[in-house]
């Protein structure tokens, strides 16, 4: 891949100039981080060790350099996370001297507050631990890596998304976003979810990772893994509930396009071992990343909208 940056024509300030699409998106995201730093008391970044949250952290580091990032991190741990990703998470936290809060789904199951679903999927169980942690820590701004290109209900999401004291999202209460004037005002107990990557696509994220030389967990690249097939996806065998008796495990060369709960995040057959390979594969792919790999978005046409109303991202 050759990357030619659409550089600003320097020197002559009378010449028309333009930013490249990545520079424009980066600048916008940095602006969003700085707005929150200027207007909120207790912001937190949702950080899972997945690629979108890694890019968010990278942008936050750039936004406040050479000073430290003025936010803490929060991970909602489903208990079914990939070990490689958790390891990456802990390394990143240590490397940048950040503070990590963890809200644990397993904890809620152990205490009997939440019940394991019959299908073993824990993604929908994240909502309660997340919202209770937000209340307990009095976070007033919560950064998420959500992108508006991911799913139809997200296409109408705002960059600043107001949530009531129950973390609920009411599409009719969202504020119009005019120019780049974000309105983050909220009542005590309410908070704002903030999506700095709103206008990015999956390909933008990958191109940016390549351009910036950002390190990712290994599972994003092709590797040999023991997997079995369920609902048309390659899932990783593990204690979370797979494989069942009628499911066979086989060794395949796969990689992950998205990283979430092991029980519902599928791998794709791939021999893309470098970032350039991955980008070429995505550019040629005819499936969106969630359609290919997220069982939970396939549930129903309104699944995401309902879950967002309850406080999910």
């Amino acid at each position, binding site marked *: *891949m*050759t*990357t*030619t*940056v659409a550089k*600003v024509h*320097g*020197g002559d*300030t*009378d010449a*028309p*100039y*333009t*930013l490249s*699409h990545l*520079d*424009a*998106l980066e*600048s916008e995201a*940095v*602006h969003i981080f*700085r707005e929150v*730093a*200027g207007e909120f008391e207790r912001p937190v970044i949702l950080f899972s060790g997945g690629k979108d949250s890694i890019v968010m952290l990278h942008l936050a580091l750039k*936004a*406040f*350099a*050479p*000073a430290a990032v003025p936010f803490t991190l929060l991970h909602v741990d489903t208990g079914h996370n990939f070990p490689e990703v958790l390891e990456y998470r802990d390394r990143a936290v240590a490397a940048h001297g950040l503070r990590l809060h963890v809200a644990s789904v397993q904890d809620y199951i152990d205490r009997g507050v939440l019940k394991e679903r019959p299908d073993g999927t824990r993604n929908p169980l994240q909502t309660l631990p997340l919202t209770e942690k937000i209340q307990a820590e009095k976070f007033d701004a919560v950064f998420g890596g959500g992108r508006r*290109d991911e799913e*139809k*209900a997200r*296409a*109408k999401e705002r960059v600043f998304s*107001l949530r009531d004291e129950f973390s609920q999202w009411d*599409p009719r209460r*969202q*504020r*119009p976003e*005019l*120019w*780049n*004037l974000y309105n983050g*005002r*909220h*009542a005590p107990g309410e908070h704002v979810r903030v999506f700095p990557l709103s*206008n990015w*696509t999956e390909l933008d994220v990958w*191109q940016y990772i390549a351009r910036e030389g950002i390190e990712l967990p290994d599972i994003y690249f092709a590797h040999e893994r023991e997997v079995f097939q369920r609902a048309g996806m390659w899932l990783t065998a593990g204690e979370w509930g797979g494989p069942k008796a009628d499911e066979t495990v086989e060794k395949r060369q796969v990689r992950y396009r998205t990283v979430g709960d092991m029980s519902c995040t599928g791998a794709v057959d791939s*021999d*893309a071992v470098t970032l350039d390979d991955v*980008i*070429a594969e995505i*550019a*040629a792919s*005819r*499936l969106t990343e969630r*359609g290919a790999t997220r069982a939970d978005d396939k549930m129903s*046409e309104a699944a995401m*909208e309902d879950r967002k109303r309850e406080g999910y991202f």
Partner: protein
Amino acid sequence: MTTTTELTETTLLRFATAGSVDDGKSTLVGRLLHDSKSILTDQLEAVERASASRGQDAPDLALLTDGLRAEREQGITIDVAYRYFATPKRRFILADTPGHVQYTRNMVTGASTAELTVILIDARNGVVEQTRRHAALAALLRVPHVVLAVNKMDLVDYQESVFAAIAQEFTAYALELGVPEITAIPISALAGDNVVDPSAKMDWYGGPTFLEHLETVPVAHDLSHCHARLPVQYVIRPQTAEHPDYRGYAGQIAAGSFRVGESVTVLPSGHASKISGIDLLGEAVEVAYTTQSVTVLLEDDIDISRGDLIVPSKDAPPTTQDIEATVCHVADAPLTVGHRVLLKHGTRTVKAIVKDIPSRLTLDDLSLHPHPGQLVANDIGRVKIRTAEPLPVDSYADSRRTGSFILIDPNDGTTLTAGMVGESFASPEPVKDEAEDDGWDF
């Protein structure tokens, strides 16, 4: 996989659509995404499944953009939806806004960040009231480029005369409003003529297809007429052993450019200094431009905080506590004379009071209704506002970012009103005074 894909950084165009379902807007957007191969297999399958389950025999491309259940149930679009697609030449962000009259505020929202607006017309109906409303909004929001997409050309036998008459009427009207640039394109979204691929049926048309125009319209900023402006968002002070004295003023350049060595003034205090360094996200640069997020360092240690504005000393805006503006009211509760509000301009939020609402503007015929007393949701009007502190505002005509503001309800934080400082339209006086308010408005 062994394909070698040449992926380069391109440019980004933000554009907005205006038009009603009846004009075929959803079909146009669907066609654009479909023919530019931006609809992925699983998205199309989902649309096919949903269409089939509702007993429709063809995939309804409108389902690609209508995301919320309420809309699906009512078959309407209630909000701005953002769509993303790319061609090898350019990345696009589309703010897809409903064209129905009660959704003026959504069109204002979509147009506020757009560099191009698409106005859709049904070739059989020509320029109608709604078209004039859309043109007026594009003019009010000072969107640099307007595309007139004359759709359903297949239903008028692809006649050049039909297209030419519509294009002429619209262009004359829009120019009168001061729209700087208009491109008219004859299309059929349903049949695919001139959307992505050139039409074989309209060989009389020699211009670009709709997508070609989107790919080539200039997104470059001409800085020769810009007043440089940097609203300070945040002060960066590491106070570490490595950077004991670093004080950087972080912000996104709202207009123009700044260079190292330049004499600058900080408003509203009026303190002056020189730029000693510009940090472009970790890279020291000599000059930085509009929409770049930067950190500026100054030679002198002066008291600067969030909400201040850094400007060239030779080109500072006046500060004022009395703002006259054209506004679009976006909240459900009305805006009244005497209303106490918060005004957010750039990175500064101040208390303000609505002193007067001299007139309301009817977009259909650009008539002015004097002293309406209040503005309700989707109203466009003139307001006079008194702010608690002086603000360095530009005219919206000069600078969309430093000439715009929002009004906020101090009680519940609702965004009330979108405001544009200065005159409504670029042309001298396209509006006519109504002697009396007949009270009839949407």
